Structures are given as C-alpha cells and as structure tokens.
C-alpha cells in the first residue's frame, strides 16, 4: 500500500459520498454534509477498508466517527496515517 496522506483520505471520503472532496475539511461532520447519512457512512467504511487492505474492519470505533477530523485521528491512532 502506498503511503497515505490526509488528502488521499479526504478524497476517499468525498468519493464515497459522491461529493467534491474539496468541499470537505477536517471540521466537516455528518450533520453538515447532506450525503453523509447512514448509508453514506457505510460507503466510507467500505472504501476505507478497501484502501487499507482490510484493516478497517478491526477498528470498531470507526462505526461511530462522525467527522472527517475524527476519521483522520482514528487512522493515526491505529498507525494507518
């Protein structure tokens, strides 16, 4: 897997939500982004797991993170970023 950067992760989130990743910041939350509903969150989980070769499935907290910043922090906490 290539080294991942925060920008790549934000790109993956934007792609999963089918929105322009440039509209997302670390402060963007599921409340602010209309497309980030329960099904949108599943798409984020799926695409991040795909990107990290199956390593997301073991990070249970990923189910409840509700902002871009929290996703990035959780990835860092798990040495994926």
């Amino acid at each position, binding site marked *: 897997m290539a080294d991942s950067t925060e920008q790549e992760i934000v790109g993956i989130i934007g792609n999963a939500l*089918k929105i322009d990743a440039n509209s997302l910041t670390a402060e963007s939350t599921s409340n602010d982004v209309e497309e980030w*509903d*329960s*099904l949108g*969150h*599943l*798409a984020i*989980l*799926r695409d991040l*797991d*795909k990107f990290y070769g*199956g390593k*997301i*499935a*073991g990070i*249970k907290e*990923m*189910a*409840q993170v509700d902002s871009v910043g929290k996703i990035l922090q959780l990835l860092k906490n798990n040495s994926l970023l």
Partner: protein
Amino acid sequence: MKVTIKSIEYYLPPTTEDGNVLKKENPDWSIEDIEKKTGVDVRYISAPEQTATDMAALAAEKILSSGLQKKEIEFLILITQSPDYALPTSACILQDRLGLDKSCMAFDVNLGCSGFIYGLAIAGALIDAGLVHNGLLLCSDTYSKYIDKTDRTCRPLFSDAASAALLSSSDHNDIGPFEMGTDGSGFNNLILPSSGTRVNDQQADEKNLFMNGSEIFMFTMDMVPKCVNALLDKSGTQMEDIDLFIFHQASKLVIDNIIRRLNLPEEKVYVNYNQIGNTVSASIPIALSQALQERRLKNNDQVMLVGFGVGYSWGSCLLRWSEQT
C-alpha cells in the same frame, strides 16, 4: 451429519413495495441512492392481519401437499422473531394448524438472520441422534410490522417471508460441519426495544425496530470472512472446492463487501436481494430454493451457507447437494 434436505418451499406475501412507494411516502428520500446501496428493488409486505405463523403455515403446506404423510413429521422447528404471542409458542400453534400428529415435537427458536443455520444444526443433531427421522424446519418473520414508515435505515431493506424445509435422515453426510458464534455485546445495535419484559431500559419507550447500520456493517465486515475461513479450515476444504456460496441476503453493500474481502468470484455467490429484500431467517432457504430452480446447483455440488446478524449471532455450514433428495 447423515441428514439431508429433501425439499424446500417458500411463501412471499402478495403485497409488494418498490422505490416509487417509498418516494411517495417520503419525498425527501433519495431513492436512487438508497437502491444503489441496498440493491433492493422490491420488498414483500405481509397484510396487517397476517402473521409469521400464518406465513409459515402456507410455506409448510406446500411441502405437506406433496403427498407426504403428516404422521411422518416428527418435529417442527420454527425460527422466528415475530411470534404471534410471547406465549404460547408459535410452533405449537402450527402443529395443530397443520394437522401434525400429537407425537410431533414443536418449538420456536428466537434467532434472526443466522437462524436457518442454527435450525439445520439443531434438527440435524436430533436426527443424527436417532430421536427423529423427518421434520420441518420453518423460518418466518414479519419485520415490516416493527418498522416505522419513515425509517430510512430499515424500511428499504426488510421483507416479510416464510420458508419450509423438509429434513430427513440420510445414508450419507450431506450437511456439515458447522461453524457458529455469538457476540452479545452487539445486542443493542439491532433491537426491538420495548418488546419484552425489560422495562428499565433507556430505549424502553421505543416501539419500533432500531438498527445501527454502521455497527452492523462493521460486524459483518469483520466476522463473516472469519466465519467462512474458520469453516474452510475445520472442514479441510479449499475456497475453490465450494461450488456456490449462499450468504444471508443482507444488502448489496454487505454482500459486495464480503465478496471483496474474501476475493470470491462473483459467479460463485448467489444473490436475490434485489428482487426479494432481506427476509431475515428465511433469506438463505429462499436463496437455496431459487438457486435450485435456476439450476445453479447440480448433483453433488458443495454449497456454503452463511447466516449472520441480530444478536450478534452467526453460523455457517457446508451442504452437499444430492439430486436424489
């Protein structure tokens, strides 16, 4: 286990709902996006007065009408989470309604999407132990009655349906081994909160089905591949030896994710969620029945059945399909 599935039938209620119905009732829903992710185009909805017991009886009668002597049915197991009453047991009501002999044992099993696998294990063990020779494994649920009309997480997924399988003793090992598991720490991620005797629950006022989709998705992503691989290890079977995989038809997102994580060839994975929806415990037997109708299974094919969901509960088993059945 020297047990075989002699026949499988199913019942779907006549009323269906598609995206147009959902859109009309919930104009703010993005139906195309929902359908793209769930993969479900049509769902079946039981009539207000129709219960899981009613539907199970209709599925069972399809088997009983094939000339089988009712006195040959020595057990009736009903997998359901939508019983007519907290008590008495719905299976007891079905024994009488189906006209089965009073020597027939009958009991319910309260499990959801893993229920068919557990039912096979229980019924198979009863037969293997020589307690009985033939019986019915019924799966029936009416989750639609638990779901709020405005619930965008549950309503687009779940269907009502019933299945009936006739299980009999056999000369050869058609079913097994099994791999089962439980993780009750996830109990409140798919729950009908005010449905039992626990009243001091934070969710006690909630009358409808609650599903935390993200938590359930993470559970399936983590546990299902482990369950599949554990069964392969236990049975000394290679992935390539499996002719068809039948997973619980949870949703397109879940099934696609399992296919990706296990690197399975899509043509070896049977899906029907698009035209049936998620029918809880009946989903695997309905898929098995349709796979047979569509000739996706040949004599001596090896099938892996995998159920997972509410509980959390999961189970998988191997099934050697015999045409002679």
